[in-house]
């Protein structure tokens, strides 16, 4: 009765309840679903071979194991990659690495991803229903200060390690040194290219056994540069 690859109804029903409960925690975020209402998104989980059709409604999602028509867009990827895409702000990483594939209406897929990524539950508000406003606020303040401390500590640690490796142990070059070195590398590469072009031109002239009449010797530096450019263009044309 059910096609291979579809998720059992009981699992879908539970999942739908859980998802919609989560959405109800962020009513403003869920309201953005209105734009996607009635569109059909097929999510295919690689590795499991399971497929779930998601139909956004007003303030909630409906999940189906089967849909008779063509979905508007298909998201294909491993559960982990799809989850990362939904949660992280940088969806491009997953897309360009090929972990997640999108077929059909990519705008819809992006809107759906934006919707998932944009969900932000005000946990303090949820907590206040259990503990009351004052206690929840205290907990919220504590959590925030721990969060801030964590972020500051990690920033300072990163900076200290960087300074130690660059200045004390001198294992890594500093930023200015690196930039100067990279500039040198660039210049060297250009010089080698020019030299190669020059050698080639000379070889051509020698191969013909006589001086090249059509390309007279350059009289000035500017002329030489022009001729080199012309040579590059020729080579690029090949």
């Amino acid at each position, binding site marked *: *009765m*059910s096609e291979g690859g579809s998720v059992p*109804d*009981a699992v*879908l*029903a539970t999942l739908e309840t859980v998802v919609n409960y989560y959405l109800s925690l962020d009513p403003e975020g869920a309201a953005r679903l209105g734009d996607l*209402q*009635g*569109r*059909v998104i097929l999510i295919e989980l690689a590795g499991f071979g399971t497929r779930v059709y998601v*139909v956004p*409604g*007003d*303030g*909630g999602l*409906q999940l*189906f*194991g*089967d*849909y*008779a*028509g063509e979905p508007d867009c298909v998201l294909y990827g491993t559960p982990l990659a799809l989850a990362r895409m939904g949660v992280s702000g940088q969806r491009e990483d997953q897309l360009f690495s090929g972990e997640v594939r999108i077929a059909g209406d990519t705008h819809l897929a992006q809107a759906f991803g934006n919707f998932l990524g944009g969900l932000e539950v005000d946990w303090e508000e949820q907590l206040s229903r259990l503990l009351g406003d004052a206690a929840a606020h205290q907990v919220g303040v504590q959590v925030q200060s721990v969060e801030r401390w964590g972020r500051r500590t990690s920033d300072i640690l990163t900076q200290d390690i960087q300074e130690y490796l660059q200045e004390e142990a001198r294992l890594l070059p500093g930023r200015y040194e690196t930039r100067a070195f990279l500039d040198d590398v660039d210049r060297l590469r250009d010089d080698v290219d020019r030299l190669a072009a020059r050698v080639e031109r000379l070889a051509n002239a020698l191969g013909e056994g006589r001086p090249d009449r059509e390309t007279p010797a350059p009289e000035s530096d500017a002329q030489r540069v022009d001729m080199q450019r012309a040579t590059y263009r020729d080579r690029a044309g090949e």
Partner: protein
Amino acid sequence: MTDEKTTNFGYQKVPVEEKAGRVRAVFDSVASRYDLMNDLMSLGIHRLWKRQTVELAGVRRGQRVLDLAAGTGDLSERFAGIVGKGGEVVVTDINSAMLARGRARLVDVGVSGNVHFAQVDAEALPFSASHFDCVSIGFGLRNVTHKQRALEEMFRVLRPGGRALVLEFSHPESPPLRKVYDLYSFSALPLLGRLIAGDADSYRYLAESIRMHPNQETLLGMMEQAGFERCDFFNLSGGIVAIHRGYRL
């Protein structure tokens, strides 16, 4: 299964013209606790039966769906999601108390715009022929006095290619399950009815009407007689419930 003068009302025989009124009394009585009772009686499994029905319906965006005996609108809610803004779901029930509850519930869960409500008798549908892509009747057919006529009406309003879905209690396949099921529905069910809805008789009627409802094969034959083609049925939960599906080709 009915002669001209009387019809089944559970295990009782009642005059044909009385059945509709008696069914109405039953549902007037249970309307306020209908969802809660459904959850308790079926241990929540009725939601899965309804999900399965909607998936078997194969409805797509932009289609027109008629939900007969919609009750509190569980099927309609999911249909409304699939057909989207461009589609239409007509939510109907013969009982105004149930329909009012269904409308209130659908508004509460944010389903609006593409749903319409109508109090209709499944035996005489006030819709033109070839109008709907799908007609469903969930746990309603057994309460209809003339089931054959209702099936014919469902066939009439369907467009060619449309399908009818009948979700209804049926007859369990295995004898042990049947024993347990009988015990449950004649002992536990009326007790639950008395405790929760304060009305044991209505729930005894539900149990009895389920027993008097045609079994899978008979209902399949009735659908074919009404004109449906490619009819099939799916037993759920060991045949306690069956979904019959037929197409108008």
